[in-house]
């Protein structure tokens, strides 16, 4: 088995970051997330042992705000001088299975079903993903219940923490080519991988989609949505929420159009210019969010838009818990 000594991780990142922007899980005070290796103070800030960092790396491939193209305006004039395609080479190093699966969701949303989103496609094509297998699930983790194997992230290479070394497993062709470039830092070693510790929460997701298909008008949504104040925090923290807005910034005759993360929790999200709104009430929006994640996405892409990372549970100011919601849905035995 190929392994990399833990002491060689810093030299590896130093080397990689000469050619690519390398994003690593980091704890900075009370904040944690994926930060560019070059912006860090070396080894003491890398947190490969952390499970889900507070911020998922979704902004690496899908920036919170992203310039799309420049515009110029004048009397009767409207032109688009430049389109911004971000071709920088990137590496996401140490992503967990839940966040890696969210990238698979993005790949399906942005690259399939008739249209390829050129902004995402360009960035994705130039990004290598190094997964970090999870053997000790956290308190709010439930990826296994959502059909995800925590020790086998969707990645080009997967590393497995085995004491003083990481086992190094190239998964894709890209991963094999990448491995060849760093071969001198790897060595062969016989070792056993750790045992996956049990999840504190496990449930059977089978049947939830079919159940929800008959529950759009169910009275349970009143009760489930009651604590929600539509703050949208869950949508921003969610690694797989992909909804966006397109807006413009203009100074005088020059400016640019950009897209930015948006949230289905907000009234304006679906408010129409003519005054109509198909989801006018808080409860309508709450229901749409959970149905999108648990039913509609599966109907379109064959798997749910929730990867069990548990962030929405940790950050909801009013204690809304998607695991409880799934359990409640499963308990509904009479369809009204």
């Amino acid at each position, binding site marked *: 088995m190929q392994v990399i000594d833990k002491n060689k991780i810093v030299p590896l990142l130093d080397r990689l970051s000469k050619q690519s922007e390398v994003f690593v899980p980091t704890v900075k005070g009370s904040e944690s997330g994926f930060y560019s290796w070059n912006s860090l103070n070396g080894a003491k800030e890398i947190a490969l042992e952390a499970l889900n960092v507070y911020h998922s790396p979704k902004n690496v491939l899908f920036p919170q705000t992203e310039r*799309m193209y420049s515009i110029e305006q004048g009397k009767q004039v409207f032109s688009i001088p430049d389109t911004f395609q971000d071709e920088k080479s990137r590496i996401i190093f140490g992503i967990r299975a839940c966040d890696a699966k969210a990238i698979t969701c993005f790949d399906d949303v942005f690259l399939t079903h008739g249209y390829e*989103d050129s902004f995402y496609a360009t960035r994705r094509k130039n990004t290598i993903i190094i997964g970090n297998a999870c053997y000790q699930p956290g308190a709010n983790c439930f990826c296994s219940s959502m059909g995800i194997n925590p020790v086998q992230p969707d990645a080009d290479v997967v590393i497995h923490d085995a004491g003083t070394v990481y086992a190094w497993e190239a998964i894709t062709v890209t991963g094999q080519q990448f491995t060849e470039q760093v071969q001198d830092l790897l060595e062969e070693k016989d070792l056993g991988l750790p045992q996956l510790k049990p999840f504190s929460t496990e449930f059977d997701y089978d049947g939830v989609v079919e159940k929800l298909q008959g529950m759009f008008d169910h009275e349970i949504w009143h009760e489930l949505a009651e604590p929600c104040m539509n703050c949208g925090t869950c949508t921003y923290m969610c690694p797989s929420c992909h909804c*966006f807005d*397109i807006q413009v910034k203009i100074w005088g005759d020059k400016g640019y159009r950009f897209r930015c993360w948006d949230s*289905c929790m907000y009234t304006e*999200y679906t408010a129409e*210019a003519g*005054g109509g709104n198909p989801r006018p009430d808080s409860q309508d929006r709450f229901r749409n969010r959970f149905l999108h994640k648990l039913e509609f996405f599966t109907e379109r892409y064959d798997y749910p838009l929730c990867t069990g990372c548990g962030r929405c549970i940790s950050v909801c100011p009013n204690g809304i818990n998607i695991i409880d919601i799934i359990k409640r849905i499963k308990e509904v035995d009479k369809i009204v």
Partner: protein
Amino acid sequence: MCSCNCEQPLVPSIVEVIDIVDETPDVRSFYVKCSEGGVPYSVQPGQCSMLSLPAGEGMFSCTWQEGNEYQHYAIKKVGLLTEELHSIEIGQKLGIRGPYGNGFPVEACKGKDMLFIAGGIGLAPLRSFIKYCFKHRDDYGKIDILYGSRSYADLCFKDELFNLWPQEKNTQVYVTIDNAEPEWDGHVGFVPSYLEELNPNPNGKIAVTCGPPIMIKFVLQSLEKMGYIDDQVITTLEMRMKCGIGKCGRCNVGSQYICVDGPVFTRTQLRQLPQEW
């Protein structure tokens, strides 16, 4: 055709407004083509384009595409973007991207009698199908057009409604306005009740309807009452859109995105979706 920005679907091409016609006090027709001539891409009846001024983008159903000559969009002033659109003059450059959506099933309807039912600006999308039928007149049977608006002034495409379309062979045009007016000697009342009064026989017919959501809902009920089965009824929906390509998330009804899976749905398809439109 000049240039479709197919590689970068979110980046508009630029077209020029070659004519502007007032249809009603708040509906204006915009005729666009590329500055170097031709249309940016080909739009089928019922498909939409994302039009933009520097200040913003909005999705509009293409009211008609005349060959490679021009595209026509009839746009009602309802919000910030449309207000700005109503202030532009001939020669203005617009951003455009598309075509979006499935469009009307013009092929599947061949050989059928057609019943078009529209309210207000809802005639704008249907007009592309109506004109397509007239252009391929022998492919379709009898054509009935039922159209209503709040007032006479609010009726779109008056020349076609009162002069051109009634001259087409085997065609009837029925027009109604919501409230009586001194100069108006036509029908007065809402579209769904006029529809029930006319009671068109469903045999061999396809009904296509568009208008305010509340009108569509009542028209669907009326058609059902009159014996139209779900596969005979077609409507076109709209919701707020940003991307037009099924990525940005907001225009879903259930698992369907209006921008790519719609905007045209049969009643059969609508029944499988949540009532959230």
